[in-house]
């Protein structure tokens, strides 16, 4: 959940759902949008964080996905880094759940063979005393 105005790709329109990304868009952007939606739909993820300067994002053809960095790997796959704000939940299980959901959504979108490793970076934790221990 970045409160800062992104500096890089600031003119690009932020994407909040994969449906907003045209099919003709790059695989990189489609994977990033898919990863963002998957992460946000995972229980225990409070939000995504693009960083103070808004650099943690993926931009292409005037569109921008905040909080997800998608980078090309050898072999035509893309490495996805999800920068998230977590609730007070077990982090290892949270990362597994995020990865599983991204993989499932990528398979549904026909991008399973383009998805590489998925890194999960916990940028912040929303601490609430009434929730379960991590």
């Amino acid at each position: 959940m970045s409160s800062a105005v992104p500096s890089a790709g600031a003119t690009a329109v932020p994407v909040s759902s994969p449906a907003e990304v045209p099919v003709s868009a790059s695989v990189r952007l489609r994977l990033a949008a898919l990863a963002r939606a998957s992460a946000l739909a995972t229980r225990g993820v409070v939000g995504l964080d693009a960083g103070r300067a808004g650099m943690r994002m993926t931009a292409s053809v005037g569109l921008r996905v905040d909080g997800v960095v998608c980078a090309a790997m050898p072999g035509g796959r893309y490495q996805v880094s999800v920068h998230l704000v977590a609730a007070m939940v077990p982090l290892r299980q949270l990362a597994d759940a995020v990865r599983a959901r991204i993989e499932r959504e990528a398979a549904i979108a026909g991008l399973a063979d383009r998805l590489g490793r998925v890194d999960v970076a916990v940028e912040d934790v929303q601490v609430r005393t009434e929730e379960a221990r991590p």
Partner: protein
Amino acid sequence: MILLLRTLVRLLGFLLLIALALAGLGLALAALLGDQLGVQLRGSAISRWLEGLEGDDGLVLEAVIGGGMVLLGLLLLIGALAPRRERRAVLEQGEHGTLDARRRPLAQVFTALAERTRGVTQAKAKLRLGRRAGHGRLVLRAERPRTTESAAVREAVRFDIGELAADFGLKAQVQAPLGRRGRRVQ
């Protein structure tokens, strides 16, 4: 802090380079073409100041300025040489990907966990991460009321945070001093 020092390095570096270039140009011109330009360094204020520095007179102002410049130089060195990448606590690293966390939120998690422990009135976690992934040190200060034993509180806190600290490869040290009066037990 490091970001501030980096900005300072860039700004001062730029200004100092310009000042140095102009001063060098001026001195070179004065040395080479001093007679034609009517500039005479001998007997000038700069010359007298340098002679004063060589003398035995106590020059407090110059010493303060000199010390300040040394300090500034050290700060500039830190700003220029400090590692650019933020150290992160790595929980897992494998072929499927990496799971890591920033230092500050992780310290907040440890603080929150300790504050839930029975007998703790207030807690504060300090986290230092090593250069290598999976190495670090956690110092947790858990304040307690007079009615509780220090050893018992330390043990309880260690039990509550131990698993998570071990997952991140952190060596945990728990302190349980008496808290300030008026704080309530969780």
